[in-house]
């Protein structure tokens, strides 16, 4: 589904990502761990081709096609979808407008809005006066309606209470249960591991990917020893 080969990325002239190699197969969920500022969001934004994220070297291959030079909308239309960590507020643009753009089935929109407790938000300007949890639910709502083949989730659970994490993960699991859907999930807290079945995880530190393995084991190691120790201990298994 997604292959990243030997990727170097710069932002504002500074090299942020170095020699990234990654592959996510069809139906696979990969968890990306890493401390603040390690480059996780940069990786996701580069995959989507946002302005300012310049590929110095390497390739991003999605569905067997090199997408380095495609625009963000072309990548989205090819099957990439993102749940933003900090989505912008857009005055005058209603959540329903976006929903109707993404999905022609009104019943489906209504049903999903109900499941994610967003019915009252449909007529509101997007992200204006939304709480942290509402923003996350609205992001998930949109990306599910978009129906991408590879979901890029940037800290989907941060700022969301336990009850809402469970509601969101239920929706997410249902979507991912379709065996062809894949996801790359960035997490800080690891809470999401209690709800989502993922077989592969990796750690990003200082713009490099350091290891790959079973996500719960990686997360336990991080919890016990911190990211620095994690880096030392798995040095030999560098991907």
């Amino acid at each position, binding site marked *: 589904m997604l292959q990243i080969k030997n990727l170097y990325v710069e932002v504002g002239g500074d090299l942020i990502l170095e020699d990234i190699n990654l592959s996510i197969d069809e139906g696979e969920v990969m968890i990306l761990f890493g401390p603040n500022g390690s480059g996780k969001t940069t990786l996701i934004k580069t995959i989507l081709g*946002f302005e300012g994220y310049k590929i110095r070297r390497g390739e991003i291959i999605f569905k067997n096609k090199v997408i380095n030079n495609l625009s*963000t909308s072309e990548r989205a239309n090819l099957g990439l979808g993102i749940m933003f960590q900090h989505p912008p507020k857009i005055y005058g643009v209603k959540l329903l407008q976006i929903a109707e*753009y993404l999905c022609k089935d009104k019943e489906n929109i209504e049903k999903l809005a109900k499941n994610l407790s967003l019915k009252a938000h449909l007529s509101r300007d997007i992200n204006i006066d939304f709480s942290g949890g509402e923003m996350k639910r609205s992001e998930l709502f949109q990306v599910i309606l978009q129906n991408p083949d590879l979901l890029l989730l940037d800290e989907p659970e941060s700022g969301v209470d336990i009850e809402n994490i469970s509601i969101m993960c239920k929706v997410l699991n249902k979507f991912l249960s379709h065996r062809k859907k894949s996801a790359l999930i960035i997490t800080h807290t690891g809470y999401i591991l209690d709800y989502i079945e993922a077989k592969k995880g990796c750690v990003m530190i200082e713009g490099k990917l350091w290891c790959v393995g079973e996500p719960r084991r990686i997360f336990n190691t991080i919890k016990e020893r911190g990211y620095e120790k994690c880096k030392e201990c798995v040095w030999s298994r560098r991907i």
Partner: protein
Amino acid sequence: MVKENLIKIDQEDKESIASSGFEFEESKRMATFFQQDDEPFLFHSLLEGVDILPMGELLNRFPQFYKLKGEAFKMLKKTLPEDINKGYFIRVKKNTVLELPIQACLFLKKANFKQKVHNLVVVEEGAKVYLITGCTASKSANEGFHLGISEFFIERGAYLNFTMIHSWKEDITVRPLSVALLEEGAHFVSNYVCLRPVKDIVMSPVAILKGEDAKASFNSLILGYKFSNQDIGSKAILRANKTQVEIVSRVVSLGGCITSRGYIKAEAKYVKGHLECRGLIINEKGRIYAVPELETEFRDVDLTHEAAIGKISKEEVEYLCARGMSFQEAQSIIVRGFMDVNILGLPSLLQQEIKNLEDKILNKGL
């Protein structure tokens, strides 16, 4: 006047006229006035509480109101540029509350024609009315000119929501002049919508709040096309205690030059005034000049302003592109959101009509 006059209008002109908010079926209107060049084609009211007629007939029918001509301008110590006998007179009688709006349209048909109108609107004590006035030109009206003088008399406790929709074309020059006088507790909402090209327009409608507790608001939605020059402002003079005004404008330059002015003068105590101008520049060649002005000699006043101009936020565009929209689609939906018809304070039916007009124009792309 017979409705046949309107039936004769060809389809292309009908579309221009409809783009200025005019409803030919009149199913959602209480009264109608239509003038082509300097000829009143149609005027009638479905309600006894509303008089609507051409200015040319005012002296004979209601001499007492004819005397009001020019009175509002005198309050500004200004005399009118010309004595004009075209345009409309509308009177909404005491305590008449209209569920549906009154509509008026001033249409330019002939080439090189100078249309000059003087409109008088009297909203009597306790009455409430929405008035939608469309000004537009036929394709044939090359190098046209429109001078529109309007005077509004809003009596004690009355409410007037006046929405003016300009739907011109690249070679039309427009000079509207208007003054509204507000008595005690009167409420005046003046909306201005201009979404089509125009050659040159200079206007700065004035509201004089001379009765205590009177309220006014001016809202403008302006799209500036390449080669258009729009110098548009709103002025409020708070002449009585406890009066309030709010001036809000949203302007988008697609390459045109827009000057967005706002002026509030507090001449009494305990008054409140707020000015807000927001502008977006889409095309590199566009220009927006925001001029907010506040003036007073009193201490017990609350006057504020905010102005912000800039380009469309990159994050907003990327956000929508990540949902699959093209750059153009994303830009267009953001501009449509920015030009928010909710600021016009219209009843839902009329608001939807204006939104549909806006969608029709903006959906064609910027």
